[in-house]
């Protein structure tokens, strides 16, 4: 934690007139300080990256800039004037547009209807032909082909993103914010997006790219502001930056490969076997394509990859949350019934889910209820629950895992992210699992909580649990895993040894560049 923290004042000056500036922005949510005195500014014609880990406060900051949230403190300046952005309409009027990570498109409307939605200049009586032509012109100007008359639900994810960008441009945005724009794109689509971004900047637009991917920052942006733990840490010019220097700012410490955890226990027999599993995604199409892997007792197998390449679906498939269309998942040689979470639980698979607030716990119920979420079947006499036992066990868990809470009857929703994750871990470990599937276990947590969670994961492996760690945080995967499997487009792109692999090697696999020396799968 002893890294230098350059001050914003040391940042290179903005290359042109200031298009937008945010000063001293603070935003609190119940139990969370999402932004803490954040400041940064963007010039006209500049591509500015907002870099930070998941949960660093990037998205909240941008939701404030787009009028969706209102800051508790601080001021926003657009074109040299202080503005109050009380609603998205104010932001749009001020020339600020945003492409969200989860697209804000109306599925049942056409592309052109979505593009003009909310526009004040559109005539009262809609003119479809004129609208179609206008959308065609925009799509040509920005090099983004898409059929104006297609319904949104018929489009690919990449095409939907283009519609979002066209929407923002059409509404006269001078400042365009892109939230994790490449998370859902193929490399080709991403390259095309970067070209579009450059075209826009050349025309004098300011583009803010929110990301936690270092190579994107270096590739596309002019300057970068780094956020960490809700605070703005530094603004630097991209020209002088390296991946290492940005990573140090973002993580707040140098990545220390020596801190890697090495197995203390000998690695045992194969416990979890995944053989040729294929499963459909939420939007149709196969999200998992014939994935095979195995995890041994006492081993941590890390799954790396760019978000949206099938990692979430893999976690769900292994834990029975998602039905398979082919292949099997077996524990100690026993194949599991597909699409049945209870079968996975019975077989000894513990699961720390990605969405801890709505999947990992029932948020309105008490901590005690949430700790009993899986064990209640046995903590009962006939149909009746042993409430005393459940409460006593919850009290024990709260103490053992150091959950900060007034008591076991407190609603889970009032816990902070770290304490909530402790409740989930307490429950999952208490079942004495043979397999642990941990998906994004530290997303959105503060540094201290991350350390704690990492400690528990290591401890699980030391207790001869087979751990499948799925994370978009490459450092985390590198630090904790015995082996790393990289996923790309729903399939295994390759396997690497974290002791010898370089970040570049893994990066190529993550980008889908196959045929490297990185080696195949076992």
């Amino acid at each position: 934690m002893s890294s230098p923290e350059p001050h914003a004042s040391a940042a290179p000056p903005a290359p042109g007139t200031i298009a937008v500036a945010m000063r001293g922005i603070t935003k609190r949510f119940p139990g969370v300080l999402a932004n803490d005195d954040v400041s940064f500014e963007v010039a006209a014609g500049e591509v500015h990256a907002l870099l930070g880990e998941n949960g660093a406060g990037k998205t909240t900051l941008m939701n404030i800039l787009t009028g969706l949230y209102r800051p508790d403190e601080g001021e926003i300046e657009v074109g040299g004037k202080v503005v109050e952005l009380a609603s998205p309409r104010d932001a749009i009027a001020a020339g600020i547009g945003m492409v969200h990570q989860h697209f804000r498109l109306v599925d049942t409307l056409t592309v052109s209807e979505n593009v003009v939605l909310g526009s004040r200049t559109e005539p009262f009586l809609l003119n479809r032909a004129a609208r179609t032509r206008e959308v065609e012109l925009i799509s040509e100007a920005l090099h983004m082909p898409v059929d104006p008359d297609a319904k949104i639900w018929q489009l690919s994810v990449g095409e939907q993103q283009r519609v979002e960008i066209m929407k923002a441009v059409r509404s006269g945005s001078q400042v365009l914010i892109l939230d994790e724009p490449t998370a859902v794109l193929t490399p080709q689509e991403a390259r095309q997006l970067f070209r579009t971004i450059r075209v826009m900047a050349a025309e004098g637009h300011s583009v803010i790219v929110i990301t936690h991917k270092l190579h994107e920052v270096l590739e596309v942006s002019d300057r970068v502001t780094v956020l960490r733990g809700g605070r703005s840490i530094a603004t630097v010019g991209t020209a002088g930056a390296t991946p290492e220097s940005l990573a140090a700012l973002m993580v707040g410490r140098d990545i220390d490969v020596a801190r890697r955890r090495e197995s203390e226990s000998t690695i045992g027999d194969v416990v979890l076997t995944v053989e040729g599993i294929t499963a459909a995604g939420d939007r149709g199409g196969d999200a998992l394509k014939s994935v095979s892997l195995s995890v041994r007792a006492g081993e941590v197998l890390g799954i790396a990859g760019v978000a949206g390449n099938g990692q979430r679906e893999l976690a769900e498939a292994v834990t029975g949350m998602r039905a398979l269309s082919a292949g099997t998942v077996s524990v100690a040689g026993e194949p599991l019934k597909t699409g049945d979470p209870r079968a996975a639980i019975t077989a000894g698979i513990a699961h720390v889910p990605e969405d801890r607030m709505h999947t990992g716990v029932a948020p309105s119920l008490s901590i005690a209820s949430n700790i009993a979420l899986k064990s209640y079947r046995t903590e009962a006499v006939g149909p009746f629950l042993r409430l005393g036992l459940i409460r006593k066990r919850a009290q024990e868990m709260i103490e053992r895992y150091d959950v900060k809470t007034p008591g076991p009857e407190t609603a889970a929703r009032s816990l902070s992210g770290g304490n909530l994750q402790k409740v989930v871990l307490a429950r999952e470990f208490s079942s004495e699992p043979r397999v642990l599937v941990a998906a994004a276990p530290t997303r959105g947590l503060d540094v201290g909580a991350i350390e704690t969670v990492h400690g528990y994961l290591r401890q699980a492996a030391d207790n001869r649990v087979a751990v499948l760690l799925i994370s978009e945080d490459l450092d985390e995967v590198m630090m904790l895993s015995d082996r790393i499997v990289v996923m790309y487009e729903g399939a295994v792109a390759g396997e690497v040894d974290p002791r010898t692999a370089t970040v570049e090697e893994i990066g190529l696999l993550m980008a889908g560049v196959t045929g490297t020396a990185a080696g195949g799968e076992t």
Partner: protein
Amino acid sequence: MSLPEIRIEKRLKQRRWLMIAVPLGSLIVAHIAIAILLVATGHPPIATFRRLFDAAYIADGALTNSLIAATPLAFTGLAAAVAFRMKLFNIGAEGQLYFGAIGASGIAILLAGQSTPVLIAAMIIGGATLGAAWGAIPGLLRAFLRTNEIITSLMLNYVAALVLNYLIFDSLSYWRDTSATGLVFPQGKTLVDAATWPVLTIGSVAIPFGFLVAVAVAFVVWVLYTRTRFGFETQVIGDSPRAARYAGMRTRRKIVAIMCLSGAIAGIGGASQMGDFRHVLDARGLQQANYGYTGIVVAALARYNPFAVVFAAFLLGGLQNAGYTLQSAEFPSGLVGVMQGMILFAMLGGELLVQYRVSIHRRARQARTETGTAS
């Protein structure tokens, strides 16, 4: 120019005192609103309220009649509460009650020679079974085809009403009185005397057996929801279906089970109508009473707490009883419905205070050119 802006944020912790203060405040607000209406239309508010409460709870026999009016509402209220707690919006208690009445009267006709205890048990089982079966339809559609249960259960109310009409008015069914007069003036067969449910008399108040059954059902529902594995699963599913699936709970089965339970309770309400009060499958009377819909209001007033449902049913039942009693006299008709609606509206508004924190801020409108004060 600056306008006050109302900000509404979800409360992390529910304040206990609000749980009491809000219903009380809502009652007061509702009464003030009605008093204004009464004054505006030239009725003396205090005297009107006094007559209303006298007829509902104080006059000779008022409590007995209020309990009679409250009994079906307690059942339909419990039926709604059971389902709404799991966020299953079963508004089909109306039809489920009809089917309960059909089942209970059918079995009472079939077992006409049996003793009263046997008949009571058979009627309750018969009513619960048919009510559950009718409730199972929207439940199955919801569980397996993801069809919105609100509209399907509403539609099935009409189908149930038509079944009722068919049995009594347009066929020579098992339920219809097919004697000479019954053919001219269609009506159901009168049940044997042994099928009349007993009454528990305390002082001058006669408590219908059905009301006691409703209290028992409320107790069972409370135990079920707070003390059993089934209830635990229901709570989790109601709060977060994804968490329930994650924990390996069989969500679909629970949806069907809850809808059946809800239907069964409404069905017992139908049985109570047969055994306690009507003693004849009264197609028109049952349809005019709107027990099912009023039951949802009762459940909402009780915030879906089973014991509070019985109490709210007693309150609303009292109002309804007063409405019937005062119908002929110089009393504003429709006042009872207005009161019920007003009380519920005030409660719904008050609910906001329990669940959300409301604060009023001054806000500046639109972009300002000069630096403004920090809000």
